């Protein structure tokens, strides 16, 4: 055996001792650790027919009941307080209540009785619409709404007479470009002092005046602090300003009702009820629409729905015709025992809930529109209509923030204009067997 040949066994032994066992363990580890990757498809359709499951498409007259309810969110529960002035079409006013006013103020860390009022104003956070600013200067007028009459202090007919020049307690004009996030409305020092010293409520009505159609949405106490009354209790400018947040004491001893009424909106002009032939969303007072469906079990239960679109025919409305408005299809989460539609429409899932999206349109638009509701329709599968009512609500994303209203024809309109349900589905199929 040559020296080279004799060297081999020694090399192998060394290799074995030092490397073979770890190498073998490493090989097993590497092979066992291979992650599976099965995805293929480039050889289709040669080796596999590129055939998806067959989709079927149908349009059903599935809406068996529809109606529009006006005044939701209800008075006092508006997330925004809409001051609108659209000539004879729409005119809204805002009422804010300061039913308790402090009678002392801090000066040098000591409480002092208020005997003078200086620099009184209302501070308001507004929804700044940079896309649609007012086209002309707007004036906000403040009126003394000196009434606490039980039962009528939220009624427009009873409150509108208070908007008279002799009751005006403040006024401020804003150039369109000056409307930023927060605005101040000056208010009569004398009126504030009068209510402070007498210990009576201060209730202020706001009105928007402009040469052109204009709107101003003010944050309400439902979503923030609302408008606050700020004044100094002394002529001394170093005195700490007094800040008062809205508060309502009426209806008496019914805090559940009186609380929200710290600020609210009344409608002076407009606000006509929706025609039975129409379904409305948004507008003033804000409207919501309720629809109930009847879908064959062969589709909703036995098949797999991949698309469900509510087909509605839009009718143009005049206010803010070109403003883009978001319509949310939302699930009604009220229990089936709630049969009152007004009540049921107050129990809605949050916009975007249940996987539902949104639909954007402008009030001036018209024609056939499709609102996608597939994720809601899928929740109807396997559940009886008693347990899971097949209902849907439509609401505006700008409730009480815009006067814009979106109208669709209802089931009481002419047949071609009625709402329908378009469903694309995969019927029950057997698959998987080669």
């Amino acid at each position, binding site marked *: 055996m040559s020296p080279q040949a004799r060297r081999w066994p020694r090399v192998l032994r060394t290799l074995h001792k030092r490397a073979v066992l770890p190498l073998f363990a490493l090989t097993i580890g590497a092979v066992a650790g291979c992650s599976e990757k099965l995805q*293929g*498809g480039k*050889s289709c359709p040669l080796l596999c027919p590129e055939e*998806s499951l067959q989709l079927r498409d149908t349009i059903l007259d599935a809406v068996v009941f529809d109606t529009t309810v006006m005044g939701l969110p209800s008075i006092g529960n508006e997330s925004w307080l809409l001051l609108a002035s659209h000539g004879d079409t729409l005119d809204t006013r805002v009422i804010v209540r300061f039913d308790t006013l402090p009678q002392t103020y801090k000066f040098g860390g000591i409480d002092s009785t208020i005997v003078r009022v200086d620099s009184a104003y209302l501070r308001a956070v507004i929804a700044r619409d940079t896309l649609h600013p007012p086209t002309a200067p707007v004036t906000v007028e403040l009126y003394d709404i000196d009434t606490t009459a039980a039962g009528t202090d939220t009624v427009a007919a009873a409150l509108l007479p208070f908007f008279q020049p002799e009751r005006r307690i403040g006024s401020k004009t804003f150039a369109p470009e000056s409307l930023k996030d927060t605005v101040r409305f000056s208010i009569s020092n004398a009126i504030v002092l009068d209510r402070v010293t007498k210990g009576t409520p201060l209730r202020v009505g706001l009105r928007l005046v402009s040469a052109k159609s204009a709107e101003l949405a003010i944050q309400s106490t439902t979503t923030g602090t609302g408008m606050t009354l700020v004044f100094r209790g002394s002529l001394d400018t170093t005195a700490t300003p007094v800040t008062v947040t809205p508060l309502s004491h009426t209806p008496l001893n019914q805090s559940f009702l009186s609380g929200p009424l710290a600020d609210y909106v009344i409608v002076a002009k407009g606000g006509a009820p929706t025609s039975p032939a129409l379904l409305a969303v948004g507008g003033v007072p804000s409207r919501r629409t309720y629809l109930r469906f009847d879908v064959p079990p062969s589709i909703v239960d036995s098949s797999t729905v991949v698309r469900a*679109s509510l087909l509605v025919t839009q009718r143009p409305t005049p206010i803010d015709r070109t403003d883009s408005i978001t319509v949310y299809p939302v699930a009604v989460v009220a229990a089936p025992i709630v049969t009152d539609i007004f009540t049921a429409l107050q129990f809605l899932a949050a916009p975007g809930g249940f996987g539902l999206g949104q639909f954007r349109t402008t009030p001036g638009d018209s024609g056939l529109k499709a609102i996608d509701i597939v994720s809601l329709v899928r929740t109807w599968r396997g559940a009886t209509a008693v347990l899971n009512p097949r209902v849907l609500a439509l609401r505006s994303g700008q409730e009480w923030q815009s006067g814009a209203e979106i109208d669709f024809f209802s089931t009481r309109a002419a047949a071609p204009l009625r709402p329908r349900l378009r469903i694309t589905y995969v019927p029950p199929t057997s698959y*998987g067997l080669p």
Partner: protein
Amino acid sequence: MTTRMTLSREHSAMRSALVAMAILLAGWLAGGARLDAQANIGSQGFGYPPGQLSARAYASGGAVAEMDPWSPVNPASVGMLGTRLLVFQIEPEFRTVQSAGGTDRTTTARDPLVFGAMPVGQGWVVSVGASTLLDRSAATEFQTMQRTGADSVGVSTTFRVNGAINDLRLAAAWTPQSWLRVGVGAHALTGRNLVSVLESFSDSTAFANLNLQRNLSFSGAAVSAGAQLFTKTVLAAVSVRHGGSMHVSAGDTVISSANAPDRLGVSLAYTGIANSAIAVRTSHENWSSLGGLGSAGFRAVDAWDTSVGGELAGPRLGAHPLMLRAGARRRTLPFQAEGRQVDEKSIMGGLGTFWAAGHVLTDLAVIRASRDASLPASEKAWTISIGISIRQ
């Protein structure tokens, strides 16, 4: 000469193009949903048959399968095991499928074999184990356009199958004479194919994804018997499996029935060299009996599996003998690709040794396979098979 070769190449290319066009046309004319196929050549139908070979037998081309106690093929071979034994095997396959549409590279993880054996009484050995009969794991993704009323939408479909038909075997072997070993086996063919279809749509705002799942369960039975005859230089082995009825069910509903395939296998080995064997094997499996298990029009084909190979005692690594193995195999796969027979040719090699004073046996096989169905697509695969046995 050159001109003739060029013409032949052109003719071949033209024929391939015509075949592809014919298949496309047939698929288009057939219409209707048929979500079932895997995007490869080897795993059509109910899947790819790994062969029920141990890593040792695989490295020898499968030629020693009838006399290999680790391969659950011939129940008589279990009788060769003189001690209690546990075996498991891992066998990933790295597959490349090439076609005009591009190249797919996939990795399929398999654990095709696990079993234990134990001597009982004088000359008797029993074993129980499971092996993969048909592995259907695959996923196919493709895009189509579908009409929905007046408009259409893009659909991305992912068809995925996970699972296999497994062969659970209880076997017993008896060695009545030093030159004879016989054995019998009872088989339960079980397993499932978890089939899922995911469809997503190009318009994701209006359409919601579709995700369907179906669990196809398999049940069936078979019996097997085998014998081995020894001389000093030759070992002959034969085994036969007879399939009973077999069913596919979804939930509690039987959706199709057929017979499990019969199989007949013969091996002949020359053992005249110490610690070495050179063998040849052929087996025939009548997969066509599975035809009724699929949907209408589905068919499987009977197949021959022929191999030659051997193992030789290699150099010793210290106290450990090293076995070197090599082989070649040719077989027909049971399920056709687009109506064409699939042939598989493979060459393989490997080695084996033991550790821990002979208590741990390890075998490694590396297989290069090429599958062809006379289609304008090719499939090649590397398979690494590692078997580990622990014996008393």
